[in-house]
């Protein structure tokens, strides 16, 4: 991390601090904070990478190619894109997948949550709380913990590889099911690692619970899938802490995306153009009762209640979700019997299909318009990080205001931490983050 300070003339003195790069996020963006007259005047998360135009790539392609193309959006959370895509297209085709296929898909998703959360908790975010610049320096003092985090991540990757065909950008998901389903024996080989992982995840919760969390609460609506029987991953209705309860097909009527000048990623807002937040805190707060017992117990022991509004504690909630994903994975493997066929036929159907699932960072909404031959006419993909951009900016503005008296280095560090609370996956549209703090001192 390097910092530069610049001064400008004029009626007041402007101090500009540039931190480049801000590390440990997935993607490239800049953070600009302007402090004027002792107040935070503005906070902007600038996504600077050009759009990747996946929605345009999809136009004209066959609907059966969508899970493989959209998986390429992200190397960390490809399963989320596959799951939202197949849900949208299968609903459009009017098909129900075999219950065992559904089970396998949830297991695949558990693998993604484990690898994504373990990477973020240990390698990207824990250094913030323990005062290290990066995971390498953290590893020198906490080797056992970093080893545990890496093994957890690897076990998540192994689940994705065995169910999805390969670790990154899996290739086994198709509209209607899978290309090939694993044997019982193949899944049984995951039992021992997942049992280890569940214990390691419980250790993770205990470890993270001892971190110091700033006393800060969010005042934004939390939005997540809600499912009557399970902690949501690949199914559910869209709910919020404001009482929203809609099917995923109505996402567009409640949430809109708008272009802002400082970002190449669209910003999503709620019905009254208000920011809202998706991700672990939203899932947890709206679905605490559906967490597996072992995860709920761990959460309570870690001092969490049934709701969590402190974004700095998202790392703790992620740790609880790793417990849930490992426990769920073990249950799914125990219940698994290979389906009669890996997939059901998916006849091309004209119309519009909607899908929404819980990526590790929050809801990932897809909409596809398809013609009778199965050609994609129009695609719209709303990733979680784009929905969180306004919430991140709001957290920055509010939290920075409480620490303006701190030394510059600490202020910058904490602001970076605010961004990393969201584990922003800017690589879903971009790469890299720089922080700019502009201090404008007015003289009377």
């Amino acid at each position, binding site marked *: 991390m390097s910092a530069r300070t610049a001064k400008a003339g004029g009626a007041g003195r402007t101090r500009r601090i540039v931190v480049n*790069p801000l590390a*440990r996020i997935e*993607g*490239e963006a800049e953070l600009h904070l302007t402090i004027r007259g002792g107040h935070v005047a503005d906070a902007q998360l600038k996504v600077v990478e050009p759009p990747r135009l996946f929605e345009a790539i999809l136009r004209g392609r066959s609907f059966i190619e969508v899970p493989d193309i959209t998986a390429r959006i992200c*190397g960390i959370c490809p399963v989320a894109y596959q799951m939202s895509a197949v849900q949208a297209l299968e609903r459009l085709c009017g098909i129900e997948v075999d219950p065992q296929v559904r089970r396998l898909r949830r297991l695949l998703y558990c693998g993604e949550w484990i690898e994504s959360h373990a990477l973020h908790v240990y390698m990207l975010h824990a250094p913030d709380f323990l005062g290290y610049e990066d995971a390498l320096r953290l*590893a020198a003092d906490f080797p056992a913990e970093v080893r545990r985090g*890496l093994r957890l991540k690897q076990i998540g*990757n192994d689940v994705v590889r065995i169910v999805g065909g390969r670790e990154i950008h899996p290739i086994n998901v198709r509209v209607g099911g899978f290309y090939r389903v694993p044997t019982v024996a193949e899944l049984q080989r995951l039992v021992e690692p997942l049992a280890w992982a569940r214990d390691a995840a419980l250790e993770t919760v205990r470890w993270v619970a001892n971190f110091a969390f700033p006393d800060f609460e969010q005042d934004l609506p939390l939005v997540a899938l809600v499912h009557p029987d399970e902690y949501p991953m690949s199914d559910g209705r869209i709910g919020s802490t404001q009482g929203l309860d809609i099917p995923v097909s109505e996402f567009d009527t409640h949430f809109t995306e708008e272009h802002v000048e400082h970002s190449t990623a669209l910003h999503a807002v709620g019905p009254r153009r208000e920011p809202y937040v998706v991700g672990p805190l939203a899932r947890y707060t709206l679905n605490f009762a559906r967490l597996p017992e072992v995860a709920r117990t761990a959460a309570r022991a870690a001092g969490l209640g049934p709701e969590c509004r402190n974004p700095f504690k998202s790392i703790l909630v992620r740790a609880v979700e790793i417990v849930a994903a490992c426990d769920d994975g073990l249950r799914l493997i125990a219940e698994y019997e290979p389906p009669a066929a890996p997939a059901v036929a998916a006849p091309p159907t004209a119309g519009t299909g909607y899908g929404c699932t819980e990526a590790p960072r929050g809801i990932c909404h897809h909409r596809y318009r398809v013609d009778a031959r199965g050609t994609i006419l129009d695609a719209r993909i709303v990733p979680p990080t784009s929905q969180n951009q306004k919430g991140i900016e709001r957290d920055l503005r509010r939290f920075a205001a409480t620490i303006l008296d701190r030394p510059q280095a600490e202020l910058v560090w904490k602001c970076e931490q605010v961004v990393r609370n969201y584990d922003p996956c800017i690589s879903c549209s971009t790469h*890299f*983050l720089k922080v700019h703090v502009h201090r404008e001192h007015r003289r009377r």
Partner: protein
Amino acid sequence: MSRVVVVVVGNRLRGDDAAGPLVADALRAAPGRVRVIEAGTDPLRLLDAWEGDEAVFVVDAVCSGATPGTIHTFAADDAGLLPEPLGGSTHGFGLATVVELGRTLGRLPRQLTIIGIEGTRFDMGAPAHPDVQRAAIAVAARIQASVHAPASPSLGRVVPVSGDGRS
């Protein structure tokens, strides 16, 4: 004889970044006692890829200003292999950082050789430079030769490569 693992890092679709995968292709075309692992663009995967293996070669594209196709060879403890500051993304876990992480965690293989192939163009969709393609074949041949030379005292240093190691 110790098992030999070759881990290649790089993106086939980014010009000279394909250097590592091209070495993998060449090794697979002439199968021997070499296990080839493509780690893609996530060097963190190396830590598990080489666990338990005794002699490991890691091949990646490098960018040092040398002529395209120049082959650089480092042992894991070379001072020249300094961990770069962690960049802004998971992609920022660069090769040198991961080697350092492996050392910190006691997860380095007994023998680790890092081979860098100099590249100049890393544009999306660009083909690899012809000199990079030739260097990849040369690197594969050298690895194969080292495997089939059981008397070799040091697998990691069987191919003395100087600053300009083009074949």
